């Protein structure tokens, strides 16, 4: 399987008559984009599109999802298969990527949850999406009493359509950079690099219900048995987030498309280890589902004869149980594990970080403490609804001061403690 990513580097955004890319600037025809998302009758009449550039005194909230504009130039299928495109398998051919650009979907859904993105100031350091040029869709439902599932789907779909639209409009522009990725057939992978350990990636996805769901080729992941996927499919948007909570450690669609665990494992493949497979699994509510999925996912790892498994969690609370089950079940099959998670250790950092643990979980990487409190100074412009600061997860009554200052836990900031490691803060081995 071979996939080329054709990259255009977006350094700025502006509104204009024709959507397209030139000299680092993505021009957006606002009325055309608005017309596209307004096609959905479930969305209201007061939709808006706004732009947020890194360094500006702009706050976007509440953010639902972040999506990178991509469009398949060649190869089977189209981006976001099963969501806005046909269900054909993706991951091969050529895909155009508007690097440095993101679509944000913002709007009210329920009276808590969802996140903040500050484009400058101290909050900007905690979200990778302060460094992207953001096309923001401000959304509302056609009817305030609309079914939340329908409205959530309408918001999700609007973001995906906008991301595809922006990239498609640039399909004739010569790419500035071409990256080539290849992922071997399992048969060939098994015979390669006999001196290196065979390592897989166990990719846990939040699948608990409304606002806590993830989709694989359009299928609700809570309904699947763990399965094997190529990392190149993920780059083409095979995994889409329907997850809005908590903002800090939900995996946005953007972070799936740019999953840094996959990127690093591909880089180190053939050098430090033999990267053989990606296994996708879910995080359901019932203990029977947790036992079934953890046993089945680790069984696949065992059938593949893996020596090691990198496991990433999504979320906090009962998914900790899935993480720990995946860990000890793999270890007891003789597969070494490394876990990537984040912490909810209280505002003073003194509480237990995870809700579950096991002696086998002795190689664990943290993306930070989501309860850490941060003060976000007022911004000149707010895109979305600032009053939501009082009710989103990580905020509390009084979070929003009269002058616009917001005092919240890091968990209110989109992507602040990404358990895929897609963050701007971290530690590096020198």
């Amino acid at each position, binding site marked *: 399987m071979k996939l080329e990513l054709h990259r255009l580097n977006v350094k700025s955004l502006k509104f204009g008559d024709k959507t397209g890319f030139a000299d680092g600037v993505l021009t957006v025809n606002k009325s055309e984009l608005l017309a596209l998302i307004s096609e959905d009758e479930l969305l209201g009449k007061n939709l808006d599109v706004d732009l947020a550039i890194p360094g500006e005194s702009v706050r976007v909230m509440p953010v639902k999802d972040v999506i990178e504009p991509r469009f398949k130039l060649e190869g089977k299928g189209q981006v976001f298969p099963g969501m806005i495109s046909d269900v054909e398998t993706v991951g091969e051919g050529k895909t155009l990527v508007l690097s440095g650009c993101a679509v944000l979907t913002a709007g009210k859904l329920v009276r808590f949850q969802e996140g903040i993105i500050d484009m400058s100031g101290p909050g900007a350091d905690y979200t990778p999406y302060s460094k992207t040029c953001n096309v923001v869709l401000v959304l509302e439902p056609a009817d305030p009493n609309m079914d939340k599932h329908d409205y959530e789907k309408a918001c999700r779909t609007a973001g995906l359509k906008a991301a595809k639209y922006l990239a498609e409009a640039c399909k004739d522009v010569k790419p500035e950079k071409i990256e080539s990725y290849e992922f071997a057939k399992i048969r060939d992978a098994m015979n390669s690099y006999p001196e290196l350990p065979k390592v897989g990636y166990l990719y846990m996805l939040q699948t608990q*219900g409304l606002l806590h769901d993830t989709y694989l080729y359009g299928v609700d992941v809570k309904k699947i048995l763990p399965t094997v996927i190529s990392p190149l499919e993920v780059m083409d948007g095979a995994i889409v987030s329907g997850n809005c909570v908590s903002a800090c450690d939900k995996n946005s669609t953007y972070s799936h498309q740019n999953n840094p665990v996959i990127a690093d494992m591909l880089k180190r493949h053939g050098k430090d280890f033999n990267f053989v497979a990606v296994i996708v699994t879910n995080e359901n509510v019932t203990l029977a589902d947790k036992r079934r999925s953890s046993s089945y996912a680790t069984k696949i790892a065992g059938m593949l004869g893996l020596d090691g498994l990198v496991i990433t969690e999504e979320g906090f609370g*009962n998914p900790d149980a899935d993480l720990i089950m995946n860990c000890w079940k793999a270890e007891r099959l003789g597969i070494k594990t490394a876990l990537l998670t984040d912490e909810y250790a209280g505002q003073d950092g003194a509480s237990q970080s995870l809700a579950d643990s096991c002696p086998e979980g002795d190689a664990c990487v943290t993306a930070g403490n989501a309860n850490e409190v941060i003060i976000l100074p007022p911004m000149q412009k707010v895109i979305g609804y600032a009053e939501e600061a009082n009710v989103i997860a990580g905020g509390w009554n009084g979070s929003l001061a009269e002058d616009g200052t917001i005092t919240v836990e890091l968990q209110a900031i989109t992507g602040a403690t990404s358990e895929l490691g897609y963050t701007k803060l971290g530690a590096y081995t020198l």
Partner: protein
Amino acid sequence: MKNFTLISNNNSLCDKVISREFINGSALDVLIHVRSLIHLGSILLTHPLCGNLRPNHQPFRSVIINRKNGLVDLESLTLIENAVHVYESCKLINIHELDELKRVDYAFIDYELMRESLEQYNLISRESSLKPAPLLLI
């Protein structure tokens, strides 16, 4: 014998469920009651913690158990003890201090996250649903 029961402080959810015990108290009160039942032999069927909301961000808690008397199930006991510990370390939201619209939305999301599990254990009919509060659009 199978005796699937929902233990919850979400009154609106309890109204929809066939076999349930309503706890007039906090999320921690729910967990402590579940722990008592586990001491008597009940088995946890759903995880006692939320999907991705801290205890101080969701005042409602709902847990499904197989209610029975007998030997203590050690896995259930470990899970419930860990959950009680997590809730004891947090300042909880007082349901009675919430404004009505927020209370309704918290109850709605609690219901939504339990819905699949309740269906799995035949505790709720598919036609049954809980409504969120209407959005206030500007």
